[in-house]
């Protein structure tokens, strides 16, 4: 049976070139980067080199990179870290309804610590409403956290405009002598090494990323923290990462992360074009050959590898499991696939309605996706749709 992986937004296979780069740091150069002996210093050297390479990639300084265990920890460190570093009577955070749970849940936790949270709505294309964002800012707003691109729909958010709004607010506060800082955090887990990112140009204060979304290993991520921005550490127990995140550094992971970034940098432009062409081919094929199928999210303002569709009359998880039986791995935002039995909060925020929200499928393409894989997938998808529509109690008009 063929094996076709179309779930690159969930995770990517680690590139063999990355594995090769990591290998010496398991049993050959195994020193603790905090140790002063030679083998320890060798590890430290490798870590510093990797840190500098990754920092350079987003136009940051080495000191501004804090390695974490992944994207979830980076988001937690950003949001809770800013919140606990500020000693203010009222703290307000602005985020959106479509953020990853790794942002929504820390915010929910902070509500219990008396934070006020505003969840911005999105339009039917999945874009955060920046006018509402501007209106939501109060004197006590300390943080705005909006993702760079959504993990389910791939819709790219207007972070440049958002950072300009934050910048204007910073200037206003300075002028009016309001002594409360405001920061902009973006969860860039879906875009890091896929889209060009310049933290300096974009005026970003904090940014989260994870290596396993860019053909690097699992268990390593980072938080970019602009120089001068203060956060409270969440993990105490040593002076690692400038006291912002204690724990012996994951040297193989850090080296692998840097290698993955290096590879992505080389291939980014060409790869984006290749993926975009395949994405649009796939979307058009589905819409043309399957009646009552809809694209979810903006058609252009979306990641080059993301296809999120709803197919009326069929439940998403049934389609996903059926495709899996043909060796095709994808994902769904249907309720049945989640233990909460709630359909995707992202699709609901886009006012999709329960019928379409339950019927969604996400295909995300990647480095090893070929056009013939997509042709096979479309063939099987049409078969699955016909089969399940025949079983379904919801009949579509033909």
């Amino acid at each position, binding site marked *: 049976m063929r094996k076709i992986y179309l779930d690159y937004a969930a995770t990517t296979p680690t590139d063999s070139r990355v594995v090769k780069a990591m290998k010496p740091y398991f049993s050959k150069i195994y020193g603790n980067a905090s140790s002063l002996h030679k083998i320890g210093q060798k590890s430290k050297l490798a870590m510093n080199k990797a840190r500098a390479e990754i920092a350079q990639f987003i136009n940051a300084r080495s000191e501004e990179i804090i390695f974490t265990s992944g994207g979830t920890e980076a988001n937690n460190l950003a949001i809770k870290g800013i919140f606990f570093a500020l000693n203010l009577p009222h703290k307000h955070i602005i985020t959106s309804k479509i953020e990853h749970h790794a942002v929504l849940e820390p915010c929910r936790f902070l509500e219990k610590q008396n934070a006020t949270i505003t969840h911005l709505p999105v339009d039917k294309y999945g874009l955060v409403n920046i006018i509402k964002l501007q209106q939501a800012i109060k004197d006590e707003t300390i943080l705005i956290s909006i993702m760079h691109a959504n993990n389910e729909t791939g819709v790219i958010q207007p972070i440049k405009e958002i950072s300009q709004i934050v910048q204007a607010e910073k200037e206003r506060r300075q002028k009016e002598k309001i002594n409360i800082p405001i920061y902009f955090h973006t969860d860039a887990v879906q875009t890091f090494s896929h889209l060009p990112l310049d933290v300096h140009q974009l005026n970003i204060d904090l940014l989260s990323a994870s290596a396993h979304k860019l053909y690097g290993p699992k268990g390593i991520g980072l938080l970019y923290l602009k120089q001068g921005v203060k956060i409270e550490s969440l993990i105490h127990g040593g002076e690692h990462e400038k006291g912002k995140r204690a724990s012996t550094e994951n040297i193989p992971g850090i080296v692998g992360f840097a290698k993955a970034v290096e590879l992505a940098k080389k291939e980014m432009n060409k790869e984006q074009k290749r993926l975009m062409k395949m994405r649009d081919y796939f979307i058009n094929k589905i819409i043309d050959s399957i009646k009552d199928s809809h694209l979810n999210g903006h058609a252009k303002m979306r990641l080059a590898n993301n296809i999120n569709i709803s197919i009326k009359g069929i*439940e998403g998880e049934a389609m996903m*499991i*059926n495709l899996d*039986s043909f060796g095709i791995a994808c994902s769904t935002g*249907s309720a*049945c696939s989640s233990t909460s039995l709630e359909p995707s909060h992202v699709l609901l925020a886009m006012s999709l309605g*329960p019928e379409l929200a339950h019927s969604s499928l996400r295909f995300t393409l990647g480095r090893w996706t070929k056009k013939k894989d997509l042709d096979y997938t479309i063939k099987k998808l049409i078969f699955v749709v016909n089969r*399940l529509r025949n079983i379904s*109690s919801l009949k579509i008009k033909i």
Partner: protein
Amino acid sequence: MGQFDKNSELMDHFLHPRNVGKLDNPDAIGKVGNITCGDIMEIYLKVENNIIKNIKFQTFGCAAAIASTSVLTELVKGKTLEEALKISSKRIREILGEMPPHKYHCTVLAEQALKDAIENYQKKSEKK
């Protein structure tokens, strides 16, 4: 061996469901679920001398929901209404095998769909 292993009963009933479709002039129809919760099951019954002579189903739902209705139709076909009413969701789970707890409600819905159909049949018979 997972719940979606191709050799599991669940996958067998999902990929090859028994008794799919509608019946012309059914003696009763049972319907449970709604689009908000994401599962809608319909059961069609043909009853003769208190025995379920024929049964068909249509389900909008996940693999476990489709498999649950399929198993249910096999369990009750040829049974008396009283026997059929004794078939529980637990019995469906015993046949389908391993499934996570958040899927149990699929088997419960199947049981309810049948009960709804039988109830509708009995109401109709009383009126005659």
